[in-house]
């Protein structure tokens, strides 16, 4: 497995190198466009991809679920796109300006943009989307835009966001996946969740819907009126929903599918295929979808009230081993409550770490007052892994064996998804639970929810499930929500990481990374921070 890891790193390195050769500065004004110029794109052709599960809706303004996150940016644009490094670039907005106090952001909108039904796009659509849809129905938007008081529309091409308190994280949440702009003329005055347009999208995006077969496939066609003239290059974009990962691999290998995003193939297949000449792997383009595997300790349980017990369990786990053998190198061992893709704020400096060490673990448990009993057992506990994918369960199995060595008898409980959610976040009847969750483009969007004491919410999955409550951490999180100075904001998050890793209410296990695997004939499928999976795929083209 060591080789695998080296191999992975080399691939990543080579990918970066290739980009470097193609253009002198990847972080130039528009990395995406420059990258596309490496070879001249040809218009036409079809690209097929696979995923699972199928969507409920075909837009992501009313849900943050995975399938919608892939589809929405194809049909809908956001105000901005993001270049590598999360640098905002124009989309429906051509320019923006935030006032000194951070309370007002003015967006100048693109002129001449038309909805798929021919109606003109105006500031009214922007105001409607944020005030009536995102603020009300979007899981993350509801808290992110909680202080958005109104969106003023002085003219058709100007939208002014007025906040009660500054919201610096907002500038990372304006793309077509996180905040897609919906047509007011279709949605206004209707039941938004049951509007038929949710499955017959009318957007401004690069692709229009051709057909949608529920649970089977979505066929998209080029929007010839797209504002980004000449794009998209593809005539047709197809996503097929196939549940069995082995079937997806076979489809990809036999050429019945051209590209697979988001690790939808089994990791070992990705690594095997990446070595073959006709395919290539790219790990870029997942900056906004960074996710980590972590484990909540239930702090209401007697054993886990003592942080030495939590730290002892951390010492008993070899996170490197987990990363290499369970995640097959698609990740980094968990070292912070943040994800390393959140480069602006991520740090391991001065952050307590828990290297693999049985002796230390045993010493901590002795110290905490849990000596080994006559039968060598200190105490018993239950592990609840998410019944979703294999990784949580496998980590649970590994953990059970590791804990046995330090005198903790652990049992593994396997239930279905609904039961698991209910048990951990509503009934709170668990000791530890293992899950993989999105960390968001910004820590305020994705990380805060696990540690903020005001987010201890019964019934809300993936909220503060450990019931961690530390006034100092709360203060830092609340300050960072409204801090406009990037340097100060970074300091707040550094302190936050240090405090949380010392208290360890939640143990970060693996900061996972994603990969795209494609037939080499597919070009420019990842040109910016959103990649093809969460971007619009307008630059993607196929070699004839």
């Amino acid at each position: 497995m060591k080789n695998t890891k080296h191999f992975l790193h080399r691939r990543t390195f080579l990918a970066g190198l290739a980009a470097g050769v193609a253009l002198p500065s990847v972080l130039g004004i528009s990395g995406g466009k420059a990258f596309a110029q490496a070879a001249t794109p040809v218009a036409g052709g079809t690209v097929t991809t696979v995923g699972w599960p199928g969507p409920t809706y075909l837009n992501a303004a009313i849900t943050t679920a995975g399938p919608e996150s892939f589809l929405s940016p194809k049909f809908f644009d956001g105000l901005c796109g993001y270049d590598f490094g999360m640098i905002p670039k124009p989309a429906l907005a051509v320019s923006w300006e935030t006032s000194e106090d951070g309370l007002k952001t003015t967006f100048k909108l693109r002129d001449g943009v038309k909805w798929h039904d021919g109606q003109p796009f105006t500031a009214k659509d922007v105001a409607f989307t944020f005030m009536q849809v995102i603020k009300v129905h979007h899981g993350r938007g509801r808290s992110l835009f909680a202080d958005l008081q109104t969106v003023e529309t002085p003219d058709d091409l100007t939208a002014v966001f007025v906040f009660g308190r500054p919201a610096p994280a907002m500038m990372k949440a304006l793309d077509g996946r996180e905040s897609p702009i919906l047509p007011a003329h279709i949605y206004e005055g209707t039941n938004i969740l049951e509007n038929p347009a949710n499955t017959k999208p009318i957007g401004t995006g690069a692709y229009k819907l051709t057909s949608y077969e529920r649970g089977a496939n979505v066929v998209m066609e080029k929007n010839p009126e797209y504002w980004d003239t000449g794009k998209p290059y593809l005539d047709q974009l197809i996503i097929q929903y196939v549940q069995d990962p082995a079937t997806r691999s076979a489809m990809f290998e036999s050429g019945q599918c051209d590209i697979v995003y988001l690790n939808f193939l089994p990791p070992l297949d990705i690594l095997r295929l990446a070595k073959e000449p006709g395919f290539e792997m790219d790990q870029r383009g997942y900056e906004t979808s960074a996710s980590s595997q972590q484990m909540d300790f239930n702090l209401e349980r007697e054993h886990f009230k003592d942080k030495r017990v939590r730290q002892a369990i951390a010492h008993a786990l070899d996170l490197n081993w987990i990363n290499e053998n369970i995640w097959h190198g698609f990740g980094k061992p968990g070292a912070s409550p943040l994800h390393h893709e959140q480069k602006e704020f991520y740090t391991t400096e001065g952050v307590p770490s828990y290297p693999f060490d049985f002796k230390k673990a045993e010493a901590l448990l002795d110290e905490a007052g849990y000596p080994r009993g006559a039968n060598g057992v200190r105490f018993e506990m239950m592990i609840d892994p998410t019944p979703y994918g294999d990784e949580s369960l496998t980590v649970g199995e590994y953990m059970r064996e590791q804990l046995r060595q330090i005198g903790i008898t652990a049992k593994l409980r396997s239930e279905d998804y609904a039961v698991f959610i209910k048990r951990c976040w509503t009934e709170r009847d668990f000791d530890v639970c293992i899950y993989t969750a999105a960390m968001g483009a910004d820590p305020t969007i994705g990380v805060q929810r696990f540690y903020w004491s005001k987010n201890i919410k019964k019934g809300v999955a993936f909220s503060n499930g450990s019931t961690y409550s530390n006034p100092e951490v709360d203060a830092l999180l609340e300050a960072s929500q409204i801090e406009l100075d990037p340097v100060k904001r970074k300091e707040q998050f550094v302190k936050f990481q240090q405090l949380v890793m010392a208290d360890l209410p939640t143990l970060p296990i693996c900061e996972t990374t994603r990969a795209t695997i494609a037939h080499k004939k597919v070009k420019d499928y990842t040109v910016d921070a959103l990649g093809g999976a969460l971007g619009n795929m307008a630059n993607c083209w196929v070699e004839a």
Partner: protein
Amino acid sequence: MSTLAPVAGVTAQKRGRLTRFVTGPLPRYVLRRLSQAILVMLLVVIGSFILVKSAPGDLVDVIGGNSDMTAETMELLRQQYGLDQPSYIQLFHYMIKLATFDLGYSPLNAAPVLDVILGRLPVTAILVVVSVTISMSIGTVLGVISARNVGKPVDLGLSILMLMFYATPSFVIAIAFILFFSVFWNLLPIAGFATVGTRATGLMYAWDVAKHLVMPVGALCTFYIAIYGRIGRAAMLEVLKLDYVRTARAKGISERRVIYVHALRNAMLPLVTMAGLQVSSLVGGAVLIETIFGLPGMGRTAFDAVSERDANLLLGVLFISSLSVVVVNFIIDMIYMVLDPRVELA
């Protein structure tokens, strides 16, 4: 055995079987079967409602878990879908709607349940009809060949083949098919019902669908070919010993005619029973094959509905599949009557 219902009397026998379908006891029979069917379906719906409601976690827990929802939004959704009411009231509302053939709304599909099911029924229907037809005809022919050559090498060879078909799980066959026909030889499409985005119509479309169905139907058939083969062989051997077959042979009728007309008709009875069972189990039970070949049929729909706690959708699927089982059983009974005039409506 051969008594007919008294109303029909002797004349009915003269009028023949076909007339019996229209006059005589048939309408009453249909009525009785219909009332039984309604009772069965009612029990299925209520039973599964109780089951799905007694499982911990509801639809909104699943939706919320998938999409970072806030407590307020979840509360809103529970109200909108009526999940905040006690179970018995939910059941009551559901039954009232069902009485008007309204199957309700499936929040996870953002569509009426009927639309979801109608979208998936064709896939299942074609899968069922094609695989029952193919497995039954191949199995029967192999069974007859075995029976005619009983004890000979052909019989032995076929028996071994049947045993292999019987013992190999369908998903193993499915994966082997994919490996050979798609990955190695690249002959057949793997997933879906037809080429996605195809503009083919008419015969070209049929050809496209046929190519997509070769592997799933093949994988669904092998097990049942073995079953039909073994049952067919046993039934045939039994029938071939009967006096009327000896009589037919004594009359000098060709062996082919004796086997396929005289004997097979009687030997078909257990095979038809098996076909009924196969149809019923395939309507909701092809989950594995549907999963492997990316075919969203009724089995998958029911499976997902359970894990996502989408009660409306689950009940809708069960309602429609129990309806189809009832209809199939009725048709099978009719076929018995055609095959064997001694069978009466009871």
